[in-house]
């Protein structure tokens, strides 16, 4: 069997395991808390649902009579059927429906921001490591660290205030204006774009420093390796050394970090969305917390987790193509 296929299969199994871990956490956490989890969870449904409907809902989350293991399998069964329960704050919409409307916006925002900041950050990081101007280095590194130390949503607040409120260059909320009709028309796309700029800029701004620094550090450690010294002895010029040897090797640990960075940037995206009332998962998250909408909360957790797992699998495949050593 092809070694690469085996490797991807193993990674896939691992992600399945992680997914089950997430599901199990979802299952266990309510039950580990003091008090009756079922009552707490469904407290808000009183008066809104008929008793039979309430029972059916309880069953979805595995709150039936019977041993813990049976409850667990009940829950999993429902999940695989696409039944994530009913949302309290968006009653009577099913959780999955509520989430799916927002999931695309979150992934769009987070995904594109991640790619842009990764590409930009890595390029600048390579340049930084190569042109080791001491003064530039001592200035840039603390500055970048400082910029990356601000919470995502705080930068969002600042940008919203200055560019949206004071200068009125960009809209203050939502993903697109109420006056345009969704579809593949120019005004819609333009509207989406203008609403996208500030949130995306927030995410890119804060995470850029991190990518620059990590790429720079990777490059610096590579520049100390034997094969770089050897390549220098062979007399290759700067350009070849930088790209063929150093960057190529520095890219690998960077891309490995990519998968994890997705988790981070998603977290940042969630909070940023709140500031801009961007209709993604973050906004939903806030509603869910405020309204104690547990079904929705758990649903959001699962969908975000699954998205991250899937993206990681894709990154693994890309990494496989770039690093021959993994195939061993």
């Amino acid at each position: 069997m092809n070694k690469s296929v085996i490797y991807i299969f193993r990674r896939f199994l691992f992600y399945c395991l992680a997914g089950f871990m997430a599901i199990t956490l979802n299952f266990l956490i309510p039950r580990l808390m003091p008090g009756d989890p079922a009552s707490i969870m469904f407290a808000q449904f009183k008066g809104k649902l008929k008793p039979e409907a309430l029972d059916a809902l309880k069953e979805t989350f595995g709150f039936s009579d019977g041993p813990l293991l049976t409850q667990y399998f009940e829950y999993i069964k429902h999940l695989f059927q696409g039944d994530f329960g009913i949302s309290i704050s968006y009653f009577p919409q099913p959780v999955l429906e509520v989430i799916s409307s927002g999931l695309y916006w979150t992934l769009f925002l987070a995904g594109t921001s991640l790619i842009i900041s990764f590409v930009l950050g890595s390029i600048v990081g390579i340049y930084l490591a190569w042109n080791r101007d001491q003064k530039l280095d001592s200035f840039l590194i603390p500055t970048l660290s400082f910029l990356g130390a601000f919470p995502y949503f705080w930068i969002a607040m600042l940008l919203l205030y200055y560019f949206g409120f004071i200068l009125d260059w960009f809209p203050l909320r939502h993903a697109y204006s109420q006056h345009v009709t969704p579809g593949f028309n120019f005004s819609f796309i333009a509207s989406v774009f203008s609403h996208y700029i500030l949130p995306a800029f927030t995410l890119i701004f804060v995470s850029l420093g991190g990518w620059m620094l990590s790429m720079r550090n990777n490059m610096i450690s590579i520049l100390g390796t034997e094969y770089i010294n050897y390549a220098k002895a062979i007399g290759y010029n700067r350009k070849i050394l930088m790209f063929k040897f150093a960057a190529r090797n520095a890219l690998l640990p960077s891309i490995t970090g990519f998968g994890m960075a997705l988790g981070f940037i998603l977290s940042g995206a969630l909070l940023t969305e709140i500031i801009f009332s961007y209709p993604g998962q973050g906004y939903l998250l806030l509603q869910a917390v405020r309204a104690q909408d547990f079904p929705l909360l758990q649903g959001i957790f699962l969908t975000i987790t699954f998205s991250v797992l899937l993206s990681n699998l894709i990154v693994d495949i890309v990494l496989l193509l770039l690093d021959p050593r993994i195939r061993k």
Partner: protein
Amino acid sequence: MKSIIKFLLSMMNNFKAKIGIYILLSFLLVSILAPFLVGSPTDYVGIPLQAPSMDFWFGTNGQGQDVFAQTLYGAQKTLFIAFLSGLLVVLVGAMLGGVAGYFGNRLDDIISLLINVFLLLPGLPLMVILAAWLPPGPLTIIIVLVFTGWAWHARVLRSQVMVYRNQDFVLASRVCGESNFRIIMVEILPRMLPLIASSFIGATIYGIGAQVGLEFLGLGDISQVTWGTNLYWATNDLALLTGSWWTYVPTGVSIALVSLSLTLINFGIDELANPRLISERHLSKRLDGDFDRNNATPVRKIR
């Protein structure tokens, strides 16, 4: 013990670390002395949403409270929780990572799997579902921070323990009949001091950011004065839409400054542990900055 003190002193020689330490100490000092420096942060002291003035250096927030007092008092709880969670994260990480790295085999397989899974699960959503179910308060936040933050440091510490475990000095100790416990505690961990210190700082930085994020969502104890709850109230009171920037800017800048100071200290530790960077710095100083590591060996004839 002697080595720890020597280590701390050598950090003061590093420019970046020195600045970081000064900033951090200032914040710590200010947070401890807050009751003596400002009035109450929770009382209604003035007209809400007033811009900064001579009476109120940072103005008032949407509930008529003194923002300056809030910022200073907020430092107390935020920093305390951050450092405490940082410490716990490193303890858990060192224990699990150390055991996994040293003993290997099945135990390592299981712990590594656990580490990898936890690294993968996205932080914020996980924190949210945990915090939503737990009663609001500092204990909840600490639990949540440790639960989501231990994996990264466990992995880092584990790798290093694995490297040392196969080196001759450990093998020699084993041949001399030393117990595993003593080998880990006396021979291996003391050699990892820079790494452990670096992890502690990293975990603390994480502690600040994650804590603020949670409280911003309203999952902290909103009756307490912390940097995170300050921001929560600022958004709640529509600071954004009324342009009351002073209700959130000071807090944000404080958060960034403290995180920055910790990062600088971390850079200092890094440079201490990386001899090549130190060599390059010495040479660069001697050549008055005219040094590029990618060029040929420099020549300076003195005769």
